[in-house]
């Protein structure tokens, strides 16, 4: 099993979720992070002083999938999350040693 960790633009979440649904992705975890990469920050002001918020809101999606699904799912995410502009995000792949479904105690790939 592998974990796919995708960092995407917040406004792309809806689209990504839609393709993941079509790709029969069983489950996912979503969290709100703040990221910093090549993309430039947002300038705000407060009572006369400007400041740059360099940390930009991003969405992190984590999906645990069977080894053979990694490529397919990653491609699906790329397809839905890409704009071509700096700030599109990254996908990272990790190895997962085991998975357990709490409800049933099932282990391994059947637990996904």
């Amino acid at each position, binding site marked *: 099993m592998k974990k796919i960790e995708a960092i995407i633009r*917040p*406004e792309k*979440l*809806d689209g990504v*979720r839609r393709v993941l649904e079509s790709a029969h992705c069983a489950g996912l975890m979503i969290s*709100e992070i703040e990221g910093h990469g090549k993309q430039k920050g*947002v*300038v*705000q*002001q*407060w009572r006369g002083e*400007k400041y740059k918020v360099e940390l930009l*809101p991003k*969405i992190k999606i984590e999906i645990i999938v069977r080894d053979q699904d990694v490529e397919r799912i990653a491609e699906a995410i790329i397809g839905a999350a890409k704009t071509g502009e700096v700030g599109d995000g990254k996908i990272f792949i990790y190895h997962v040693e085991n998975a357990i479904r709490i409800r049933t105690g099932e282990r391994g790939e059947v637990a996904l």
Partner: protein
Amino acid sequence: MEFKVALDTMWVLVTAMLVFFMNLGFAMVEAGFARMKNCVNILSKNFIVFAVSSLGFLVLGWGLMFGDGNAFVGLKGLFFAGGLDNSPATGLAYQGVYSAISWTGVPLWAKFFFQLVFCGTAATIVSGVVAERIKYKSFIFFTFAMTMFIYPVIGHWIWGGGWLAQKGMFDFAGSTVVHSVGGWAALSGVLMLGPRFGKYHNGNINPIPGHNLSLATLGTFVLWFGWFGFNPGSTMAADPLAISHIAVTTNTAAAAAVMSSTIISWMLLGKPDLGMTLNGCLAGLVAINAPCAFVSVGSAILIGLIAGILVVLAVIGFDRIRIDDPVGALSVHLVNGIFGTLCIGIFAQDKITGVATGNGLLFGGGAKLLLAQLTGVVSTAAYTFIVSLLTWAVLKATLGIRVSLQEEIEGLDIGEHGNSAYPEFLGRKPGYSFLGTKNS
């Protein structure tokens, strides 16, 4: 006499202050019903709108509305409320150019201040409907237009001795003058602007929940409170029987509308939606505006009940026809402004608080009054809608009226103001709040 002037002035000023306070109510309702990312923008619009009104109505609005003139506009004492005037003299003793409002025996500046806060209310109604996509600058310019020549002209027709007043149309506290005018101006704006991005998508209606129902409830209470200035104050004199009667018709209609809107939304939607209850309250208050001094408390219950139902159906209905009004202001002010105006024709009882309106349809007066009211509704619609549309069109062609799509997605707070309303609170990120959702 001297005491009467002092007493009436105090009444007029205190109620005017309450109406002024409604600006807070509108700001909180509208901010609460909109998204976090546009909060600063809405607060800014609702804050500056009264400042603009104060200047616009002073510079020209007052003169156009109350200056002696013809049946359509005031022509004398146009600028800076600067015409001749010997208020608080009234009746035959009055000498000046603002004779249409010489029936009330208070100083000129008290009259001005009271009328100003009404004008400001009409202007602020527009703010909510066009929220979350309009350019700040264009909204400011529209507000100048609104308070300098859109509102004052209708005001002249009905309260300034113009042709509608002469035709026997009544509008005690402004269901038409204030609320319908605000509503029509807003409707024209929303047609020029179009719906918010993402609201109507592939034939679906995407609900875009407001970010803060505590603020929205706070705002509605403040408005209800302010309405006790709006309606009872419109006597512009501390006439004990009239103001007591009006306080109770006003409150009773609001209460009835709260109940009916809650029940109808419970029935239609399965659960009692707080947003609908709040809108229901405002609907009842708008509907009782025009007739508050002319109908019985019993009729006020009926008017309120109907208003509460109307507003729920209208909110749902506007969405069906793809008119995107983030705060329900069209359903509240336009629909119930019209309904309230017509209510005089239906429920009026002659001289119930002293004014000789004649009886309405249900009290044996026939359709005469109703027809006069209808004339008022239609002509107000025509003038306000057309002039507003033209104004929006000019703004669109020059400054532009809608922010860029990217700014709309990222939020107007950063784009228009460089601020964020809640910089330390973690929020679901812009563009995400409603995209994680899907119609059931």
